[in-house]
């Protein structure tokens, strides 16, 4: 019985530590992104070390805007209007964004741009997959474009091979 009390104590301490780190969650449930209005979450950035913040405006259960602050972002919401989902895992974030690339909606290009800002192999592999096997030539070209703008070494190595292969 004493081990159970000790375990409860440890869990309580762990919860307190988690609470002291703020209201961030890891691998939060993005499927709950069905509320109207702006949402945001953070992911590890392709620019290491760093984080990238992704903003999504939901309208009628679908994203109306996907924005990543930086050179290509113009319409960011004001702080008070945003539901902050905290830190989200790269896989979950990419999974969520990728469904809109595959859906061929107008938002697909913005989703692709956002994917390109994620750290790790996964985002580059998604882009490479599109470049090498997608039937939509325009989407393939967009994938190449965002790959270059990600400025990652691996992306540049791939572009190098693409440009030099016959």
């Amino acid at each position, binding site marked *: 019985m004493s081990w159970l009390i000790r375990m409860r104590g440890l869990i309580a301490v762990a919860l307190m530590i988690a609470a002291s780190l703020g209201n961030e969650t890891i691998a939060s449930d993005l499927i709950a992104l069905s509320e109207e209005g702006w949402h945001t979450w953070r992911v590890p950035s392709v620019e290491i070390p760093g984080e990238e913040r992704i903003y999504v405006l939901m309208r009628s259960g679908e994203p109306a805007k996907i924005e990543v602050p930086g050179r290509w972002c113009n319409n960011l919401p004001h702080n008070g209007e945003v539901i902050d989902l905290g830190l989200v895992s790269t896989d979950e974030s990419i999974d969520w964004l990728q469904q809109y690339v595959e859906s061929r909606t107008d938002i697909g290009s913005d989703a692709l741009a956002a994917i390109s800002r994620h750290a790790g192999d996964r985002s580059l592999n998604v882009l490479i997959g599109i470049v090498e096997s997608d039937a939509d030539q325009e989407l393939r070209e967009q994938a190449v*474009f965002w790959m270059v703008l990600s400025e990652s070494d691996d992306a540049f190595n791939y572009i190098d091979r693409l440009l030099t292969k016959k």
Partner: protein
Amino acid sequence: MHTHLKLIFVLLALSVASTAVAQTSQADQDKEELKMAALEALMSAPSDLALPLVIKVLNGNNSDNLKESALFILSQIDHPDATAKLLEFARSGDGGMQLEAIRMIGINGEDEAIAGLTDIYAAGDADVREAVLEAYLIADDVEGVFNIAMNTQSEDEYEEAVETLAAMGAHEALSKLREAKGPSDALITAYIISDNDAELRKIALDGSDIELQIEAIEALGIVGANDADAVLVEIYRSTASEDIKEAALVGLLIGDHDDAILALYRASNNVVEKRDLLEALVVMDSDSMMEVIEEALGDQ
């Protein structure tokens, strides 16, 4: 029957082959467009990352179209190595690539690259020289074109340089050229293109070369400066030369100055001259014609 089967087989084979060729061609085109997209994106990438890739495209076995785009990207990369590479292609590139590289130097506009055009012009053939002039035009480098005009011994090259200066609206340089080299057909054309009536007046009043003077007088009518009619009337009245008089009348006619012609008509007592002036008014389909006719009827 055997022949028919053979024919069907050949047709089928041809059909499959043409489909395969079409697919290959589409695949090649898609690949080319992907490369183009990558190149275009490199414009937004840091120069130290973009430059090696652009140079690889230029040195590789790629299409002219892709290489020309690579040259443009190269011209947009702010890096000394990019300028050096551009100059290298402008000096020794193959045919079309060399000409494109020269033009891209104009777009690049870097002082070092522009300075390199002098030697390229001197060593180049007619196409290279034309491309250099174009590069100066793009870079709006009046001095470069002026130096070519001043130093060339070739009449054709002089004309091309003067034309380029006219397109650049380089009034001062064109005035300096007249002072240094004297008036010429090329300069008169340049003054017309650049709307420079002040220089045209100088030649129109300069009697040292009557042919050029006539050209300049007529050109005053083309340029259509505000007081061109007064200048042309003054030239008409003050000259004893029939050719100069005729040129002034042509200038007034081209400039649609029927009031000035009517004034000359009324002031004239010479029947032959009056007839010429009247003819000009007829050619212009001028309303002044009616005034002349009414005056003539009133006199009777």
